[in-house]
């Protein structure tokens, strides 16, 4: 099915001036056009996508005399990364990852979500809680608050052992693996359950969590004993431990109600609980590409532009007309008009002209950090983790 589709587009062919990146690629590879199209592109039809398969075997095209194998050198030559956007206020980064397989991109995404370690509240010791929120619910809410602390400065807990079942072993908890936070809030407002003037009245927010660099104030109960105060470390002087956001609502108190607790953070990964996940989310999409299969000029070109009238503000029409001839604009089309292009490519009048494709090895990757670490650091850590997994396996195999 994909075969017919691919060959149709290419045989009818556009003149050299309207050559797409794909056509230029064809000249390089030794594969017939329709196979090269299937190898590198997903075709987005108006009803369904075709040629969505990934051809990742060295022998896929051996009957055509085409070697589809890839060495590390070839990978490095084909690899390209371009940063699109870094938004420090939003802790978001968007970049293009070109020339990798879906499983590689997916491995990075999976590691970002579940295997990059962070610090999060794990144990909560209640001294007093007369609020309407039960202890366990409050403890859970606290756990989800992102804590800005460099996880590399802390040690992980020992992994669960056979003897202890699935429970973590209780290590000695001290300044190397624990952050102690204290929360003390009391509502002294005269309007029980009523008006809140300012933040003192009733609203307990994440900024009320105070860092105790000297460790637990109730070591007998918590079993956490610091031998050295954490703020003697130079790293903490530069960046004291605090919640990433100051204005996360933890609880609402009525007059006379009180919360007093000590919260202990430990190092963990998102695999165990999402509270340790360093990203709000991390995702990728394939880079879209719009092509004109035949020359569109004169009135028809104007007609094509008219199809894209009324796009939201700031969204560019995916086509432009130069010298009376329509051509796709440079770069991938805006997300907001992709469905319009897709619908157009299914219309009787336009289906031989307009085609929407996706480039199979071009990923537009977005990393949305929770604010614990900047997204670029998260990505580098994720790559390191994948490398160490691979390196560890190689070392074990070399031994065996």
């Amino acid at each position, binding site marked *: 099915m994909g075969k017919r589709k691919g060959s149709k587009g290419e045989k009818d062919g556009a003149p050299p001036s309207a050559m797409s990146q794909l056509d230029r690629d064809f000249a390089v590879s030794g594969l017939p056009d329709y196979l090269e199209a299937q190898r590198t592109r997903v075709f987005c039809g108006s009803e369904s996508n075709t040629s969505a398969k990934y051809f990742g075997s060295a022998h896929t095209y051996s009957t055509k005399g085409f070697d589809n194998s*890839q060495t*590390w050198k070839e990978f490095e030559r084909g*690899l390209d990364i371009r*940063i699109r956007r*870094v938004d420090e206020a939003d802790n978001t980064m968007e970049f293009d990852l070109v020339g990798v397989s879906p499983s590689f991109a997916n491995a990075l995404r999976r590691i970002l979500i579940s295997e990059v370690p962070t610090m999060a509240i794990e144990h909560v010791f209640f001294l007093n809680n007369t609020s309407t929120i039960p202890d366990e619910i409050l403890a859970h809410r606290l756990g989800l608050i992102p804590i800005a602390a460099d996880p590399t400065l802390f040690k992980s807990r020992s992994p669960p052992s056979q003897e202890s079942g699935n429970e973590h072993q209780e290590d000695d908890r001290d300044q190397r693996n624990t952050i102690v936070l204290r929360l003390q809030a009391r509502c002294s407002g005269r309007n029980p359950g009523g008006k809140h003037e300012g933040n003192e009245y009733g609203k307990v927010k994440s900024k009320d969590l105070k860092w105790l660099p000297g460790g637990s104030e109730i070591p007998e109960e918590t079993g956490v004993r610091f031998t050295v105060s954490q703020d003697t470390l130079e790293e903490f002087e530069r960046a004291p431990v605090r919640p990433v956001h100051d204005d996360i609502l933890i609880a609402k108190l009525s007059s006379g109600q009180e919360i007093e607790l000590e919260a202990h953070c430990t190092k963990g990964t998102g695999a165990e609980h999402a509270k340790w996940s360093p990203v709000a989310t991390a995702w990728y999409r394939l880079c879209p590409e719009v092509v004109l299969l035949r020359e569109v000029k004169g009135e028809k070109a104007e007609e094509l532009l008219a199809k894209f009238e009324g796009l939201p503000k700031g969204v560019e029409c995916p086509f432009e007309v130069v010298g009376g001839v329509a051509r796709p604009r440079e770069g991938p089309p805006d997300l907001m008009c992709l469905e319009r292009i897709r619908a157009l490519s299914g219309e009787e009048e336009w289906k031989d002209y307009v085609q929407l494709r996706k480039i199979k090895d071009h990923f537009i990757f977005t990393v949305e950090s929770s604010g614990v670490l900047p997204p670029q650091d998260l990505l*580098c850590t994720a790559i390191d983790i994948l490398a160490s997994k*691979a390196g560890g396996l190689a070392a074990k*195999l070399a031994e065996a």
Partner: protein
Amino acid sequence: MVTSAEEADNTVTFLLQDEDHTMGASLVDVLNRSSNVVFAGYTIPHPSERKVQLCVQTNGEVSPKDAVLAAAETLAKMCDSTKKLFRSRFEEFGNTMQE
């Protein structure tokens, strides 16, 4: 981490302890792009056990063990070049933003 479960001709099934799709899919992918590998695939026999069975068949030029070893090394090198490139591109991006 690794135990060989079955060996016949040039086919070996490896058992990777404490791994999941992250390594399974990435390794299979690198293995498949190698010209000496005839077949590579993985399965996770039970979703609640962190175990991956990796089956590799080679054409006899190299042993399956060496093929996986090479693939793991390749994957590690791929990570290094990705990180290096990302670092330099990120720096460039920071410089252009300042201008």
